[in-house]
């Protein structure tokens, strides 16, 4: 299977898993994106931009922190606020953030989503090449 195909398959698998997680109590929504597509499903559509910015910032700062503290490649980033928390993950070329109530067990969700990663056999060099040849970006918003 081509890298593009693998990336699309991973995106589809993650989306399928996220749909299951989405229906659980305490899940506020999620943002899943790669270089070509994005899926957003948030309870309150008026907050999509704020959530998207926070999602991007959490992973970017996670990258910076990883560099500063020499943490290696990022497995997960968790931000816990007074009102809710965010679990952000980088799985191959997919970046996702799940927004949830503070009482939700994010470690359980993290493990479930990482299983999706292990079911793939990625070719990292091909992914880079695929990213360089970006095509039109598609964004899907659900609310």
């Amino acid at each position, binding site marked *: 299977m081509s890298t593009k195909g693998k990336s699309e398959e991973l995106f589809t698998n993650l989306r399928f898993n996220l749909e299951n997680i989405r229906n659980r109590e305490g899940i506020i929504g999620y943002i899943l994106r790669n270089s070509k597509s994005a899926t957003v499903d948030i309870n309150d559509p008026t907050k999509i931009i704020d*959530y998207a910015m926070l999602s991007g910032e959490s992973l970017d*700062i996670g990258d910076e922190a990883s560099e500063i503290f*020499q943490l290696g*490649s*990022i497995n997960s980033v968790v931000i*816990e*606020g007074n009102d809710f*928390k965010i679990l952000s993950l980088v799985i191959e070329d997919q970046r996702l953030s799940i927004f949830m109530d503070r009482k939700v067990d994010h470690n359980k969700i993290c493990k479930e989503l990482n299983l999706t990663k292990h079911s793939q056999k990625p070719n990292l060099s091909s992914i880079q090449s695929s990213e360089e040849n970006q095509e039109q970006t598609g964004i899907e918003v659900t609310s």
Partner: protein
Amino acid sequence: MSEDMYANALKTALTEVRNICPEVTRSFIFNKEGKIIAETTQDTETSTEKAINSFQNLIEKAEIMGGINTFLVNGNKGMVQFSRINDVYLALSASKKADMAYIQSVARTIIPTVMKLLENIVSTSLKSVSPSQNMVAETLTGLFSGETAQVDNEILKEWSKNPNNAHIDEIEIETASGKTARCKVKAISEREFQGKGLIRIPEKIYRTLKVEKGEAVKVKPITREGK
């Protein structure tokens, strides 16, 4: 108490955390303004400041989630966690094999205890220069609301007429339920809030005190011993 003594006490506390949890690789404490209050000796200043700058950017974006309590980055070689303790942030990084939950439980026991102890020591060197005054609570919001409350300028002038003519820049607020908070104070700048017996309390302190808008609170001016 001097800032050096305060920093040294916290540095000792951080060192103790590391003694208990040797997996800790770096640790430091900084305030909301990004000033490093204490750090253990293994830290390099450049990277510490860079980390704080990054984290401060995140704090701004995270207002939508009611502020940040913890920020955890888990990598394949180690992890770092920033966590809020009262008005400051504690950053701890550790190797991959570390149990971050255990480290946090140790740190979140030792550091607040030391801070509380230090606050109590500082409290003893503070004195009130005037009896407490009843005021009406009003929330102070906005990007630059900071941690400084606002009262009428006339009240500040009245308070300054103390035996030492000490300028008042700090107050203690007490709610009807007995909750207290200490913060800086300055004159109300916006005309619409002047002359109404209001105290405009920054949102963060407002939440700490769990005070309602329009609620009567007692406000006491404070000056440090020797001023």
